[in-house]
């Protein structure tokens, strides 16, 4: 095995190595491409340019242009081409530059990939992976700051995962590549640079459909995924030191299948739930969670289920407006305090 370029993922063969989220994704891709010749990466600027967010840096040199394929700007075309190759048993990993651009391929994802298993009576499978980052926070404004994963997670026939840290980024991407069904891997722009310990074991896999208790606590459960988990952990630490409130943080890791068992077990312990997402709450991930929690935990709840998401406007450009609209630390903290009875029941506006 060759070490491709200076900034490719560190070699890691045992124990753990500290690396960024993007390096963990790269390591997962490298390991899976080394393990299985049918795995290939396809997307805009994944080869020569080394990926818009440098996830695929060095992979073209290591695996060549037949396995790291630069496409034209043609999402509907190459997502569909990924589906077709997958039908023949290839394992395409299609990178979409950001989830905002997946909209032009929506017909292929929702109306084609998701339907194959059922509509053709189980006669053919579609082991396709689509990787794409969501999220706002960099003043990218209305068309480039969105989080649509809930739309996909609401579609039977798809699987959707959203790693929140480097170890899960590696383990979930690898598991997605090995899965026989179409899987959307939702990455996140602000956490590409986040560092964490990542197991070097090439068989480090994170099962699809299992949430993780990221922080234990007795007073309230904060349920989140992706970057919202990172914010939730920050809030939990702050509330512990400033208010003595011990929040449990449940990182969903997978949106479809959704691990309601782990969420419900946490809420049954804490009797209170605050749900956080980067997307808009209406009809969103938190709406789904709230519905399932009220059914699974009806007798356990000591307070209304609260939720925090992006304010329901197209995301604005001005830094102060963008901050206000995103599920920032202050808004999450206010919701948690209200839920444990230490703040106003309906959080006030930040302005």
């Amino acid at each position, binding site marked *: 095995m060759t070490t491709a370029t200076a900034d490719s993922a560190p070699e890691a063969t045992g124990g753990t190595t500290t690396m960024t989220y993007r390096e963990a994704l790269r390591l997962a891709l490298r390991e899976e491409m080394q393990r299985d010749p049918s795995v290939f990466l396809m997307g805009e600027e994944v080869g020569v340019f080394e990926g818009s967010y440098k996830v695929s840096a060095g992979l073209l040199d290591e695996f060549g242009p037949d396995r790291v394929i630069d496409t034209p700007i043609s999402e509907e075309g190459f997502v569909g081409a990924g589906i077709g190759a997958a039908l023949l048993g290839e394992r395409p990993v299609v990178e979409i530059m950001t989830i905002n651009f997946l909209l032009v391929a929506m017909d292929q994802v929702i109306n084609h990939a998701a339907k194959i298993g059922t509509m053709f009576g189980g006669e053919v499978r579609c082991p396709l992976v689509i990787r794409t980052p969501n999220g706002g926070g960099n003043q990218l404004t209305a068309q480039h700051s969105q989080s649509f994963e809930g739309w996909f997670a609401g579609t039977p026939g798809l699987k959707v995962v959203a790693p929140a840290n480097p170890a899960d980024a590696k383990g979930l991407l690898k598991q997605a590549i090995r899965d026989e069904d179409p899987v959307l891997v939702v990455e996140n722009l602000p956490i590409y640079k986040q560092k964490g310990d990542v197991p070097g074991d090439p068989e480090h896999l994170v099962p699809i459909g299992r949430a993780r208790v990221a922080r234990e606590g007795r007073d309230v459960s904060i349920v989140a995924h992706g970057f919202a988990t990172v914010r939730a952990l920050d809030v939990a630490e702050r509330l512990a030191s400033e208010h003595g409130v011990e929040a449990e943080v449940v990182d969903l890791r997978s949106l479809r299948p959704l691990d309601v068992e782990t969420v419900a077990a946490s809420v049954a312990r804490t009797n209170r739930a605050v749900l956080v997402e980067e997307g808009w709450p209406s009809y969103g991930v938190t709406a789904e969670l709230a519905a399932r929690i009220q*059914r699974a935990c009806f007798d356990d709840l000591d307070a209304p289920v609260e939720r925090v998401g992006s304010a329901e406007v197209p995301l604005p450009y001005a830094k102060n407006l963008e901050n206000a609209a995103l599920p920032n630390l202050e808004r999450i903290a206010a919701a948690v305090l209200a839920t444990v009875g230490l703040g106003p029941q309906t959080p006030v506006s930040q302005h």
Partner: protein
Amino acid sequence: MAVAQVGVRTDLYERMLLIRKFETESERQYKAARIGGYCHISSGQEATTVGTIEAMTDDDLLVTGYRCHGFALARGVPPEAVMAELFGRRSGCAHGRGGSMHLLDVSRGFYGGWGIVAGQLPIATGLAHGLVRRGREDAVLCELGDGAVNMGAWHESLNLAALWRLPIVYLVINNRYGMGTSVERASAEPEIFKRARAHRMEGERVDGDDLDEVTEAATRLLARAREQREPAVLEAVTYRYRGHSVADAGLNYRTKEEIAEAEARDPIERARARLLERGASEDQLDEAAERAAAAVAAAVEFAENDPEPDVSELAYGMHAAGSDVQFAPMRLGAPYGEDELVFDAGLGR
């Protein structure tokens, strides 16, 4: 070339008749409410269907749009499995989950009838890419209608196929109308085959009602795709006798005279006349017609007696084996009735 190839092929004539009789029966069964949903009849297009399928090898792959009964039959899917699918029965080729628009038979390289106009094009293009990746020297035949060529997916697919030199032939069945809109009212360039040139791709138009002509062109273009990895567009000009679907009488956008004119050029009658010229006997051809009729009758009888799919297998095939374990924690808090409808029978196949 054409004569040598098609010769005295009474089997191709029989295949065309099988499709015509099957379609006539499908419309009858639809009107008797034994077939539901949409039902798109291809009567009048048999020469294009049979000629292009005849040009395929056993290892080539086929992808079609939703007007796919004829293609399934021509490719050799048993009429029983097709009719059972139209009836929504367990032994249908998609086990009653797909219906008229979503026939398939992977064992015959038929990767589906797809229901969204032009949606099958990127997928067929990817199948061609998959053939290359796997070192196979086979080709894909991707059927579409004239209505699909104004979709973005058409342009994106042709661009990728030409850019990556994929072994695929896009068969445009120009039956002159996308639903009720004529090609002239929909396409700024109504000579559809010419659009291939925008992608530096071979484009060719044939009389889609001439079995010999269709077979010759499709054979040549598929061979070129296989051997030289040169994609192509083959436009077959034909006519659909019936409406867009069984629910459409097909008369408010075209005249009875126009339909009668098309029927006077009937591809099956033309094939019969040519076979007689080449030495086939009337008896031979009549026997072929009887066999086709018997096959359709047997298909209907089979479908009638085939059981409906079991409701306890509602989610059958939706996910791969092992997925049950992934979904198990989702049972908790699920909406009323999901346990019985979805989870109990298993999400994984």
